[in-house]
């Protein structure tokens, strides 16, 4: 997929939970655009039975949903082709991270949106912070829920604007209690997991920080000539190394590799660093790797590519040596490894991979990424 910005402009209304008012604010903006003479349509809108929000669609043209037959059931999805035919200037698309029913043209709604943008249509959309790919493990850790529908970080980075729709957790809980957000039964269930106050507070902080980050990356190019850092403390490493951070992630069959990739990419994004991922096998193209493991490695490499990380399969007899040699050749400054598995701990006869890499990679930083799934969850006393 090319990284060049698409023709249309994307604006994301970012929230941290259902009911903070993302859709409402998006529709308000659509109404304002319409009053200003912009040709606006609703491509997809999820009413959730919220009266105030539904009222905000008054007078806006709606492109009817497309019906898709799947396993005897009839499902409704956004009619992307219909919108393309109608060609509005601005299209409203609710629930950006939605996964389309099988049989749709594209797997994900964000890909539908991508199509609209490529056609030069501007899009307003909504999402919650828990759907951002690089935060997936942290969200699991905080809420106990593995969010399946995710948005790759680069998709958010391509957005022209990210706006935080903010509401305090207490106000949100009040709304929930008043039945504004969900029906009574669903509200009760929601209160039991996502909607605990301390959870909401953490999610909200994540959303605020992410929005600040999105604002920041849109204003300053740190690598641009003439960029002056704040006076005061002088960053030696940055001054001498030309700010050329390069991160290399080691891909293995270990399930925790997915976590490692997300974490490495997130760190790379914040440091404005290049990011690569490699797997190492003794024979070319993983031929010596047992099928099951090979499938896992390929799955992980594919996952990395979906996050716009360049990948490579290296050939070498010794994993640590091959990895570090490649790193040296490519000016890598920072390696990312998974934690050694418990079975590898008794280091009686041989050193762990971590030890071997640290031993060889004298001039690099080596991060052993946390296992963020193991953190214990907390309940009030």
């Amino acid at each position: 997929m090319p990284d060049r910005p698409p023709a249309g402009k994307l604006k994301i209304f970012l929230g941290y939970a259902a009911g903070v008012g993302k859709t409402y604010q998006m529709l308000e903006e659509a109404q304002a655009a319409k009053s200003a003479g912009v040709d606006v349509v609703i491509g997809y809108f999820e009413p959730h039975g919220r009266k105030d929000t539904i009222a905000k669609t008054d007078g806006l043209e709606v492109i009817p949903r497309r019906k898709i037959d799947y396993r005897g059931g009839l499902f409704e999805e956004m009619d992307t082709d219909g919108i393309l035919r109608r060609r509005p200037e601005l299209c409203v698309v609710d629930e950006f991270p939605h996964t389309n029913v099988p049989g749709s043209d594209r797997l994900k709604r964000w890909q539908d949106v991508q199509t609209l943008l490529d056609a030069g249509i501007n899009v307003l959309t909504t999402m919650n912070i828990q759907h951002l790919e690089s935060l997936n493990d942290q969200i699991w850790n905080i809420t106990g829920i593995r969010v399946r529908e995710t948005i790759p970080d680069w998709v958010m980075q391509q957005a022209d604007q990210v706006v935080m729709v903010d509401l305090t957790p207490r106000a949100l809980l009040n709304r929930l209690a008043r039945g504004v957000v969900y029906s009574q039964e669903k509200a009760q269930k929601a209160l039991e997991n996502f909607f605990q106050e301390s959870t909401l507070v953490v999610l909200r902080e994540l959303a605020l920080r992410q929005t600040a980050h999105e604002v920041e990356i849109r204003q300053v190019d740190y690598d641009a000539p003439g960029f002056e850092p704040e006076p005061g403390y002088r960053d030696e490493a940055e001054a001498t190394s030309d700010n050329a951070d390069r991160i290399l992630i080691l891909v293995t069959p270990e399930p925790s590799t997915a976590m490692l990739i997300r974490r490495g990419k997130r760190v790379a994004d914040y440091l404005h660093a290049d990011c690569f991922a490699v797997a190492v096998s003794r024979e070319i193209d993983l031929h010596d790797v047992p099928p099951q493991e090979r499938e896992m490695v390929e799955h992980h490499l594919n996952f990395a590519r979906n996050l716009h990380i360049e990948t490579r399969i290296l050939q070498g007899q010794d994993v640590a040596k091959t990895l570090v040699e490649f790193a040296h050749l490519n000016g890598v400054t920072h390696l990312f490894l998974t934690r050694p598995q418990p079975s590898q701990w008794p280091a009686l006869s041989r050193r762990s991979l971590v030890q071997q890499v640290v031993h060889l990679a004298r001039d690099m930083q080596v991060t052993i990424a946390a296992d963020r799934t193991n953190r214990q969850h907390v309940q009030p006393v």
Partner: protein
Amino acid sequence: MPSAIRRRSPEELLRQVQAEEDYERRGRLKVFLGYASGVGKSYRMLDEGRRRKERGQDVVVGAIQPKTSLDIEAVLNKLEVVPLREIDGVYVMDTPGILKRHPSVCLVDGLAYDNPAGWPHASRWEDVNELLDAGISVITSINIQYIDDLRERVTRITGKQVTQTVPRSFLNSADEIVVVDAPPEMCIARDGQLGSGSGGPEQKLSELREIALLLAADVVDKQLEAYLQRNGIAQTFGAQERILVCITPRANAAPMIASGKRNADRFHGDLTVAYVRQAEISAGDQEALERNLSIARAAHARIEILDGQDPIETLLKFAHEHGVTQIFVGHSTREQWWERFTGTPLDRLIRGANDIDVRVFPH
């Protein structure tokens, strides 16, 4: 869900009960935070007052900016106003009048205003503090340029000096803080005060917006800490990156601290440099340690000197208690023969860190 509740000491329990009682007695403070005039924070404040009144709460307006728009007039008409008092030509919030009226909620605009000489409090935010102490909840609004530790940065961007400020600690004590996050283009038309300073208006507003979002995130972080404290919850995860750089006299501390500083800055996170006190170190080591600590101070890191029998355990305990997300350690590549059998300190650190990234700086 498993829970991480630890057994608490009587002192901790007492502190918790005290915190709960203080919290219950005091009014709640809610702040609408704006990054430029024209984002609509006063309107949001008043509108919340109106909605609360409609839901049956006893709401009054304690202070509102003199210049108002039609939107604001419309909401004001639905609310009871305790008029400002005029003292030597200066308008001041009638705190005694509000205390006597004793509403459950009071709306206060212009939090940073100075009071005239002779008024019991020098600044309006101190009046608000008194209202809160009296059990009156306050909803207020403020522009980030009036927050003391942000004033300089904001002035650099806007080129506009302000003299009145509100301390950051007061803001940190807020129960709720809301960012009024209007996108920049909405403010440009309305705002004529971004003339000087560098960069175009959109760039400036964008920088101010980022400051406001991060400020709100920091306050939210403080609230979470307070909430957890009040409820006796030991929660190790958080939304903020917290970096702990572990140094020793022999460590090659400069690159570790430089890297820690840069990572903390880019993540807008928190940087701590820790040293576990070693008994009987040589004069040379002591000197080296001092040098390393001065590097840490120059990087504006928080410095922690820890005591403990076992350095690894001490560091891990500190890291877990303080929600650290990344530990930076130096590691000598010269291995001792016995470490082949016992595992190196690095092995132990990685094993114990489990839910924290360990970043190794080999040397």
